[in-house]
């Protein structure tokens, strides 16, 4: 019984976390891949006049702003839905 209950809790937890953890694992894989590349070619970021540093900076800025806008969009969506339901 006890075991069953804890298993049920675990199942609930995994279900809610499933989508998030998939994203997190994917991100971790990407980061790991980048590190692995770094291990074989430590000078990748510094090749061709360190242009990849500029690329990295631009990607970080654009991705962060994009994610922030998506979160904002989701917030607005929730508000619209609530309004619709009222």
């Amino acid at each position, binding site marked *: 019984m006890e075991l069953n209950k804890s298993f049920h809790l675990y199942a609930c937890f995994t279900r809610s976390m499933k989508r998030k953890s998939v994203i997190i694992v994917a991100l971790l894989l990407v980061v790991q891949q980048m590190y692995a590349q770094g291990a074989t070619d430590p000078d990748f970021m510094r090749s061709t006049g360190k242009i990849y540093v*500029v690329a990295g*900076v631009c990607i*970080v800025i654009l991705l962060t702003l994009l994610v922030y806008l998506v979160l904002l969009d989701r917030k607005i969506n929730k508000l619209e839905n609530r309004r619709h339901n009222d």
Partner: protein
Amino acid sequence: MVVSVSLALLMLSATDRPTTFRLAVWKWGAIVLLLYVFIAGWIVPLHPGIIQVNPGTASAGDTVTLEVKGYNTSFLRDTSQLSAWLRLSGDTVLKAGHIRVFDDRQLKARFYIPAAFPFRSEAYPLTLIVVNGADGASVLPNAIFASPAVRHQPEEMSLWTQHKLQGIQVKAGIQYPFRNILAETIRNTYFHVPMWFAMILLFGVSAFYSLHYYRKGDMDLDRKSVAFIKVGLIFGLLGLLTGMIWAKNTWNAYWSWDVKQNMSAIALLIYSALMVMRSSVEDDLQKARLTAGYNMFAFVLLIPLLFIIPRMTDSLHPGSGGNPAMGGEDLDHTMRLVFYPAVVGFILLGLWISQLVYRVDKLKGNTWS
């Protein structure tokens, strides 16, 4: 430009709102400026420069053959004017006796280092200058270090002033300055620096609304000030992250406990603490009052943290310890043409996002109350 404008128009026509939506002029300004910055920031080439010289040392009274590796150079074009120089200071220069060009990026230059120097030192840092008709002058400061001669020969002193370095042509067209160590990352000036400008401005606007809240007591002003803090924090975080990526490849570490890094991190922590504090207070009125007071003090603290303390000690970061941040070769006239639009563009983008956040928060407040 054309693509983005037509996409935006398409987006506007697709909205089924009863009232027609018109994007404000300053928002169009943000779009145009940022497009210009991303295009000009990426496509304008770097001035030719030298990235590597081998060997790094030489002894006086010897002949040394330097293997020179150029960046963006075209040594093969216009070889008639090709010459290589080692400069000790001012007009005290040596001309290469023989130059062999392998390709556009590689050449070998042979120098004889005289066994006499105009002044006494343990080692003499020499600047390498390669001149040709197409590239103008490519410079590498402290390219090699010459050690003093075992036997001093005063008659060789005249070799230093035998040739004069003059009549260098300036490379045609627009380009960004080549700075050793920085190389292409000089372009980060258009992306990393405006983040901090935007953050400071957003926090400033927020502090202004907080002051206003104290005078009027209007909850709407509190909502405004918080929206600007939220977006200011995002920009601050971006400034820190982009700075870390840049630092890893120029200072060799993501975080080197530099004053500028530490103080900006503290500034961000102060503002994060404000958001945490806000969420821990339940009463709305108390929340707004505490935020307004804290926010004004936080903005006042920002000034010593970002502008005064880093300038008082040595730092790797430009703008500290006597380094100029906004002058010299780090920001020449060509770069200013992109840098100032970048600052304005990112500030407008920050204001835009803050306005959206405020509008969402306002809607949320209306539906709940």
